[in-house]
C-alpha cells in the first residue's frame, strides 16, 4: 500500500486542484448570506415532547459529544487494565503523547494539591472546544442543508403555533451560508415598499399629466390672447383671424389630452419597465398585473398574510415570491453564543468551586473583604478591590464566551468569503483555521486552569505573611 502511494500523492493533490477548478467554473460560487444567531431547523424538528426547536448548532454540539464518547470508549478499551505497556503506534499513541505533554504543561502551571481537578477540567474543555472548532474544516458542515425560502418564522401567540411569513425590509432570516436558489439576482423588496414605489410612480405620473395640462392651458391662453390681440390690432384681417381663432380653440383641446396622456404614460412606463426587468430575472414583483389598479394593494396585503410553506415546490409560482437560501443541517457549535456562554459559565463556576474547596467559606472574603475596613486606614480600598474582583469574575464569563465566539465566527466567515473570492484555492485559510481552532481551544482551557489555580491561593495568607514581616 505504502509503496504504491510513494511519489504519487502529488498527483492526487493536482487532481483535487483540477477538480476545484472544474467545480468553480461549473458551479459559480455565490455571495454568502451571514447570520450570527444559530438557525432553527424547520418546524417539526423539535426536542421530543416539547415545543423547543432544535438549532443546527445544537446538532453539531451533539455530534461533538458523541464523538468524544466514542473516543473515550476507544481509549479506555485500548488501555490495558493490568498496567502493562501499550505497544506504540496509531491514534492511541498520539493521544497519549498529547495527554502527557499537556499534563506536564498544566503541572508546571497548576501543580498543587488540586492538580487532578484542574487538569480534568482543562482536558474536558480543551477536547470539547477543539473538536467543535475543527468541525468547521469538515466539508459539508455549514454548507449543506435545507434549501429554504428566505422568509421569517414567527410565533403566533394567539394560535400558539409557528407561522412562516414573508420578510419585509430588513427582517431577513434563515440561512447561515446563503446559496440563493431561485431568485439569486433579486433584491428583496417588500410588498409594502412595492406599493409605496407604485404610489410614488402614480403620483409622479399624475403630476406630469397635470403639468402637461397646465402647460397646454397656458399655451392655449397665450395663443388666444395673442390671436385676440392681433385681431384687435389688425382690422383688415379680422375675418380670417376669427377663423384662425376658432381653429386654435379646437386644436389645443385634442393636443391637450394627447400630450397629457403621453406624459402620464411615459412616467408610468419607467416603473413598468423596472418591474418587468425584475420579473424577467424571476423575481417577485407583486400580485396584480397593473400595480396602479385599485385592487392591487388589497390583493398584495392578502398575499402578504398568506403563509408560505417551508418547502414550497421550487417550480411553483408561490416559490417565486421569495428568495431562497441554504439552512445548513450542521453549523459549528462554537459559532453560537449559547455554546460558548455555557462553557464560560461552567468554567467560572468551577473556578469558584475549586476556590471554596481549597479555602473553605473564607474564599468569599476575596469578594467581600470587610475584615480590614475599620482596622486599617486603607480598609475602604480593600472593600472596593473585593467588589472589583466580583465584577471581574462576571467579566470573565463575557470575555471567555466572546473570545471563542468571535474567533470561530470570524473564521467561519473568512472561509465562506475566501471560498467565494478564490474558489479554486481556499485551502491556505483552512490551514489557518486549523491553527486558530487549536489555539483558541488551548487558550480557553488554559485560562480556566490558570483562574482555577489562582482561586486556590489565599490572598489572606500573603497579607498575614507581609504583616508578620513588617512586625
Amino acid at each position, binding site marked *: 500500500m505504502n509503496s504504491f502511494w510513494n511519489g504519487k500523492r502529488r498527483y492526487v493533490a493536482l487532481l483535487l486542484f483540477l477538480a476545484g477548478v472544474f467545480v468553480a467554473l461549473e458551479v459559480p460560487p455565490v455571495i454568502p448570506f451571514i447570520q*450570527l444567531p444559530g438557525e432553527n431547523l424547520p418546524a417539526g424538528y423539535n426536542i421530543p415532547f416539547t415545543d423547543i426547536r432544535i438549532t443546527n448548532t445544537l446538532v453539531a454540539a451533539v455530534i461533538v459529544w458523541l464523538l468524544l464518547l466514542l473516543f473515550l470508549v476507544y481509549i479506555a478499551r485500548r488501555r490495558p487494565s493490568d498496567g502493562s505497556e501499550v505497544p506504540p503506534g496509531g491514534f492511541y499513541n498520539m493521544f497519549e503523547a498529547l495527554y502527557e505533554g499537556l499534563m506536564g504543561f498544566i503541572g508546571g502551571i497548576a501543580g498543587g494539591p488540586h492538580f487532578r481537578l484542574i487538569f480534568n477540567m482543562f482536558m474536558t474543555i480543551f477536547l470539547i472546544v477543539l473538536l467543535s472548532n475543527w468541525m468547521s474544516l469538515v466539508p459539508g458542515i455549514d454548507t449543506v442543508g435545507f434549501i429554504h425560502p428566505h422568509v421569517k418564522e414567527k410565533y403566533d401567540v394567539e394560535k400558539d403555533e409557528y407561522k412562516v411569513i414573508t420578510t419585509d425590509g*430588513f427582517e431577513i432570516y434563515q440561512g447561515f451560508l446563503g446559496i440563493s436558489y431561485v431568485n439569486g439576482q433579486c433584491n428583496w423588496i417588500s410588498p409594502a415598499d412595492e406599493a409605496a414605489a407604485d404610489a410614488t410612480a402614480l403620483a409622479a405620473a399624475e403630476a406630469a399629466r397635470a403639468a402637461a395640462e397646465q402647460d397646454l392651458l397656458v399655451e392655449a391662453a397665450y395663443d388666444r390672447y395673442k390671436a385676440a390681440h392681433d385681431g384687435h390690432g389688425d382690422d383688415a384681417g379680422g375675418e380670417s383671424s376669427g377663423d384662425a381663432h376658432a381653429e386654435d380653440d379646437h386644436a389645443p383641446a385634442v393636443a391637450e389630452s394627447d400630450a397629457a396622456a403621453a406624459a402620464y404614460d411615459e412616467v408610468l412606463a419607467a416603473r413598468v419597465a423596472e418591474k418587468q426587468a425584475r420579473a424577467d430575472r424571476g423575481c417577485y414583483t407583486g400580485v396584480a398585473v397593473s400595480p396602479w389598479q385599485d385592487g392591487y394593494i388589497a390583493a398584495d396585503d392578502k398575499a402578504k398574510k398568506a403563509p408560505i410553506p417551508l418547502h414550497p415546490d421550487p417550480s411553483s409560482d408561490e416559490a417565486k415570491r421569495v428568495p431562497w437560501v441554504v439552512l445548513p443541517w450542521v453549523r459549528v457549535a462554537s459559532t453560537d453564543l449559547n455554546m460558548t456562554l455555557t462553557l464560560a459559565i461552567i468554567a467560572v463556576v468551577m473556578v469558584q468551586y475549586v476556590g471554596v474547596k481549597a479555602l473553605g467559606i473564607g474564599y468569599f472574603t476575596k469578594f467581600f473583604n470587610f475584615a480590614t475596613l475599620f482596622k486599617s486606614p486603607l480598609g475602604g480600598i480593600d472593600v472596593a478591590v473585593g467588589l472589583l474582583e466580583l465584577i471581574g469574575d462576571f467579566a470573565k464569563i463575557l470575555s471567555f464566551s466572546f473570545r471563542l465566539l468571535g*474567533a470561530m*465566527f470570524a473564521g467561519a466567515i473568512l472561509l465562506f468569503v475566501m471560498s467565494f473570492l478564490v474558489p479554486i484555492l481556499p485551502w491556505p485559510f483552512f490551514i489557518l483555521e486549523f491553527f486558530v481552532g487549536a489555539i483558541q481551544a488551548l*487558550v480557553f482551557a488554559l485560562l480556566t486552569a490558570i483562574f482555577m489555580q489562582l482561586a486556590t491561593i489565599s490572598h489572606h495568607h500573603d497579607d498575614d505573611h507581609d504583616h508578620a514581616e513588617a512586625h
Partner: protein
Amino acid sequence: MDPQATIVLGKAIGAGLAMIGAAGGGIGIGLSVGGAVQAMGRNPDHTPTIQTNMILGVAFAEAVAIYALVVSLIILFVLN
C-alpha cells in the same frame, strides 16, 4: 434620504469604526512577538518555552481585537 440606505450607511460606518479596536491587538501582537524573537535570539535553547508562551500571549492580545470584531459583526448581522 432613503431610510434603508441610511441604516446601511450607519451600520457600515459603525462597523468600520468598531474595527479601530483591532489596532490595539495588532500593537500587542507586534510587541509580544518582537520580544519573543529577541529572547529566542539571545538564548536559542529556550525556544520551545518562549514560543509556547508567545503564542499564548499573542492569542490573548488577539482576543482584544476579536472583541472589536464581535462588536462590528453584531452591528452588521444582528442589528436591524
